[in-house]
């Protein structure tokens, strides 16, 4: 269920901001995807090394644990951009016009407050593992081969920071739609009925050129 809703575009400043941010988000999400791919390669190397040369990858578990935040966090703003983070829209899909934009605005503002708090919380988690005076700046290391953990911990506030930017764009988008009473605002995911959303999703998955026979 990886596909979200359409985001409309225009020449308006907010839409330009939206697309500029999208470029950054796509790079980060691709980074996430490449990290998944390297996970696969890592396992092949580890199993191969163990069976062929009796030389398992040293610190295999440590490396996986380091890669996981890269996979789990980097795409978070990209997913928020088109509304893929799941929700129950049984109530909200019945709303229209200003009422809908107001609901969306409140929801986005709440998430923004939450994420700003988590940027602070995850940043302080990072700081506890970081020490300029220590070798490799490390004050927290992995169990097996002692890798510094601060780079992985730093990924959380960075990804959450980008998400905060995205939420600000969306708050502006919904706020504008609410004030101006717009029908089809830019820079925010347009709510679709569950059925339309599923159709878009199936469309994306069942791309005929991909099914090669």
């Amino acid at each position: 269920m990886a596909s979200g809703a359409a985001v409309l575009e225009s020449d308006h400043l907010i839409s330009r901001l939206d697309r500029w941010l999208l470029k950054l988000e796509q790079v980060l999400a691709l980074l996430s995807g490449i990290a998944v791919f390297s996970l696969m390669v890592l396992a092949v190397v580890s199993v191969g090394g163990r069976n062929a040369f009796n030389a398992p990858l040293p610190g295999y578990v440590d490396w996986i644990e380091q890669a996981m935040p890269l996979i789990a966090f980097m795409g978070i703003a990209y997913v928020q951009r088109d509304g893929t983070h799941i929700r129950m829209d049984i109530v909200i899909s019945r709303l229209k016009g200003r009422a809908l934009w107001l609901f969306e605005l409140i929801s986005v503002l709440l998430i923004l407050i939450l994420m700003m708090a988590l940027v602070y919380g995850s940043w302080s988690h990072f700081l506890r593992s970081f020490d300029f005076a220590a070798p490799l700046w490390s004050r927290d290391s992995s169990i097996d081969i002692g890798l510094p953990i601060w780079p992985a911990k730093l990924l959380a506030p960075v990804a959450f920071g980008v998400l905060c930017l995205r939420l600000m764009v969306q708050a502006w988008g919904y706020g504008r739609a609410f004030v101006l009473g717009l029908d089809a605002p830019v820079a925010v995911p347009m709510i679709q009925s569950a059925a339309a959303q599923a159709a878009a999703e199936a469309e994306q998955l069942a791309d005929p050129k991909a099914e090669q026979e």
Partner: protein
Amino acid sequence: GEVAATEWNVSVWGKRRAFTEHVEKLAELVSEKTGGEFTMNISYGGLSKNKENLDGISIGAFEMAQFCAGYHRDKNPTITVLELPFLGVNTLAEEVAVSHAVYAHPAVQKDLARWNAKLLMTSPMPQYNIVGTGEPRDELAEFKDMRVRATGGIGKAFSAVGAVPTSVTATEAYNAMESGVVDTVAFAQHAHLAFGTINRAEWWTANLNPGTVNCPVVVNTDAYDALSDSERDALDSSVSEAIDHYLANYGALLDKWDGVLAEKNVTKVELAESELDAFRTVAADPIREAWIADMTAQGIPAQELYDLVMKTLSDVRAGN
């Protein structure tokens, strides 16, 4: 206003086992001595992940916690002196003595003060020994190319004799052994029982004693300072009783251990003293020297800490 009762949250992990008995006993004693005014709520994993118990103490999320130094060497470099291979600690009582001597050292207290933590007591662990499948390995030469689940200093010791330390989490250790990812697993006895590795074992080294991990119990300094005098007395005076309870309980487990070996038909492997000496020469000295050099470079009185361990050990033995 009214005098509020003091309730501490304590973060440990896993299930209640020999390894947490002193914490349970401490809670019981403190509550008894204060007539229920000072109680402890022990949570097994609900408050934090084990590797982040020091973070939780530093934040003030809970007042007391247990952790192992080897989980995160950079968080607590000074305590890792107790995890050096082949320190020569033979009994749980000796382990308690050296741990508490090290905990009392100002450099160690300063190290832990970075986490707003005060060291309260240790969780003495017997020496790690390996269980394995196949032919028993009772000579150093047979350790070559052996895939062993061992982390930290013990892992380094094994790689010094040509074994291949393999990273597997404790919970995956059984699977790893079953699947041949590793040939052997190094654990303390209670962990061989808890993680089921004993069920795959055909042999167990009784006297390899390469080292162990050190797992202190700490309290949040502010919470400790905020205790009333009578509460603090109740806490401080209960530590040695709690440790005694732990030792008695673990001792019973060790007594049972031989029965477990017999029941599961596990061979008890004794390495010859010459083999052990050879192992120590290759593994103990270089690793200790590297550790001392590393730590000294970070401004830690490493040699002093190591000497303290050795001195305490000989004092304890002289006292016996």
